[in-house]
């Protein structure tokens, strides 16, 4: 490529690169740096080394929030993925493509709106809580699962759309041959569909792990981490540390831990990518 070509290239990618630098790289580096400082967000930061990490990792609130995140991840790695796969396979079999719009509709709604609506649905006086005799968002044993249920309702349509799109790349004659060989629906799904879209499934599973550790809005709109900390996640804990406790350094440390967990998931993805059958 000529020098003129290089400069043209830079002209096109420059703005995106600049935005990435300003919005992503600088705050990320600042967060890592701040995690080594004691700072209330207002006065001068004081260097404390790894003390913030030590404090956070020993804190029962952090352990509880991490366990909630792990539960969240396990649920979202299974239930909505299974629903998305089944939905996509059914769309392929029935060819009722118009249903995609219905499945996808909750995805486009703002999370704040959906969260508030589900809060009203669960309400013990004005919602289903009155009839089932349980305030689902008010009980520590049910609150997290109630929120996950609402999130799955709003999310599985996205996975269905992604998997259905991936299905289009599977040659149709494979299914025709399978039918001729006497394969039933389950066998078609198990031996053609799943292997055919395995790279997409793996990619979405890894993204689910990463996104699961970023969840904030669902919790904040519905329970703000309550009742009694039963829905506290790492992101909400981080927010409270920064803005309620004035411990920005500890909040940054939690942010770094979340990023490390995300990187770990990414490494798993790159390892799996190299395995036979999963390569993209």
């Amino acid at each position, binding site marked *: 490529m000529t020098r003129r070509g290089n400069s043209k290239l830079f002209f096109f990618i420059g703005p995106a690169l600049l935005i990435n630098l300003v919005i992503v790289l600088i705050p990320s580096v600042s967060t890592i740096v701040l995690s080594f400082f004691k700072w*209330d*967000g*207002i*006065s001068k930061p004081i260097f404390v080394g790894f003390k913030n990490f030590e404090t956070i990792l020993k804190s029962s609130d952090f352990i509880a929030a991490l366990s909630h995140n792990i539960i969240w991840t396990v649920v979202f790695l299974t239930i909505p993925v299974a629903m998305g796969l089944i939905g996509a396979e059914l769309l392929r079999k029935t060819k009722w493509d118009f249903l995609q719009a219905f499945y996808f509709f909750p995805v486009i709604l703002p999370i704040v709106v959906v969260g508030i609506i589900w*809060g009203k649905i*669960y*309400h*013990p*006086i*004005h919602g289903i*809580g009155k009839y089932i005799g*349980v*305030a689902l*968002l*008010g*009980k*520590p044993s049910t*609150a997290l699962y109630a929120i996950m249920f609402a999130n799955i309702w709003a999310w599985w349509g996205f996975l269905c759309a992604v998997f259905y799109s991936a299905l289009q790349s599977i040659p149709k004659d494979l299914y025709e041959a399978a039918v001729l060989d006497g394969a039933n629906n389950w066998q078609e799904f198990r031996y053609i569909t799943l292997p055919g879209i395995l790279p997409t499934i793996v990619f979405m599973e890894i993204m689910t792990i990463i996104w699961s550790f970023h969840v904030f809005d669902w919790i904040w709109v519905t*329970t*703000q*981490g*309550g*009742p*009694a*900390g039963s829905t506290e996640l790492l992101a909400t804990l981080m927010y*409270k540390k920064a*803005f*309620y*406790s*004035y*411990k920005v350094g500890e909040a940054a440390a939690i942010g770094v831990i979340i990023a490390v967990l995300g990187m770990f998931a990414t490494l798993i993805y790159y390892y799996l990518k190299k395995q036979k059958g999963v390569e993209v």
Partner: protein
Amino acid sequence: MIVSSKLQLSGAFKSATILVSSNLKGGNKPMRKITFMILIVLFVFTLMYAQEKGKVTWWYETVTPENLQGLINDLVKPFENSHPGVEVEITVKDQLREVLRAAIVAGEGPDIVMTMGPAEANRYAKAGLLLPLDEYIRAAGLDSEIPSLFLDIGKVKGKVYSIPKTIESMGIIYNKSLFEENGWKVPTNREEWVTLCEKIKRKGIIPVAAGNSTWRPTNEHYVTVYLNHYAGPENVYKALTGQMSWSDPIFVKAIEMFKNDFKKYWPDFSTYSTMAAEDIVPMVAMRQAAMLVIGTWGFQWMGDPAYWPSDDEWGWAPFPSLNENVPYPIVDIGIGTTLSVNKNSEHPDLAADFLISMFKNKEGLAKLQRDFPGEWVAPVDIPSESIPEEVDPVFVEHIQTQYKLLKEGNYGYTTWTFLGPETWQWCYEGIEKVWLDQMTPEEYMKKWDEIFKKELEEGIVPPVPPRR
């Protein structure tokens, strides 16, 4: 400051005009084009400056449009009318605390700084981000009018940086019609409180309507009341000033008593965690519950048919004494919000003038009791004759009682005003573990004491003025 800036600007503009006009007359074509563009730019900047020179900006917390209009009509417009060319611009910010901090620390933010209380305001003051207000307060004579307690708590290194906009206190708002029909009396001591609650329960009515779904720190309102009304304000004062441990048995007993009362007389925890004002106030109005244990802000909902959809009357009373050694009545005094001036304001004098004018405008403050009840109980003496007739007489009774008890020294301390941020957070988060039997009251107060001592050492506990 404004006048001198105008002179400087007019001097610069004059020099620029002389240069430009000579180029326009004698210069060549490109030069004339450049000169013309400079003229346009200068004109635009002058226009911008001229428009901005009289603007005071203020970021306000979440508020209804009606209440905001009341504030504008009663306090803002009178100031603008008496200061021609000056505009006060109020912007409502949903997450005010978070966005305010980011802006102020970056050297930006509004001229009028509204914080959740002296704990927050004092942090900004310590970091040199707020303007000292002593000079302005003295010049306006407010130092002899505002009780010293409310000025002293906003002091950092001897200077005042914030003035409370709202003095609030905890008490009971109850369904007066329900009480009268059943012959129930407002309780004044522990025995009367328990007897009343049991009578209410036997009628199938919840004694205390409460919920924290939209504001989790609501829990601390009740903790405040039980600490002050059982352990006593003197002991709370000693603990706040480090003279007494928060893990002292008297505080542990207060929490134990509260835990038992919460389980018996409040809604069950799972329901409590999902209810908000729009649920609990109508419950009292419709006789599904009998009382609210609530602060001054509760009056913003009284008289609103959406919250009080019945013809029943309401009443207010101080919370009863829970210990024979604690006098009745006392009120637990808090500061809901404070107002300060941003050190980086472009017009600090103008902003300070506006801030002070709000506290001097007694007529406007009186009208706000009608137009924005429960949220603008400023710490100044408002003549009762200036309070509009439409103002809820129960609310007037509450404010007057609050002020009277404060002056007499019969007051306690609210947790949201007098604790450091981490102790405050533990106060309302930890109590849920006590309610759910995940932690004993001893363990709760022990951790409270540990966190408080750390914050006291770090100097982030707001100063508590000596009791009278």
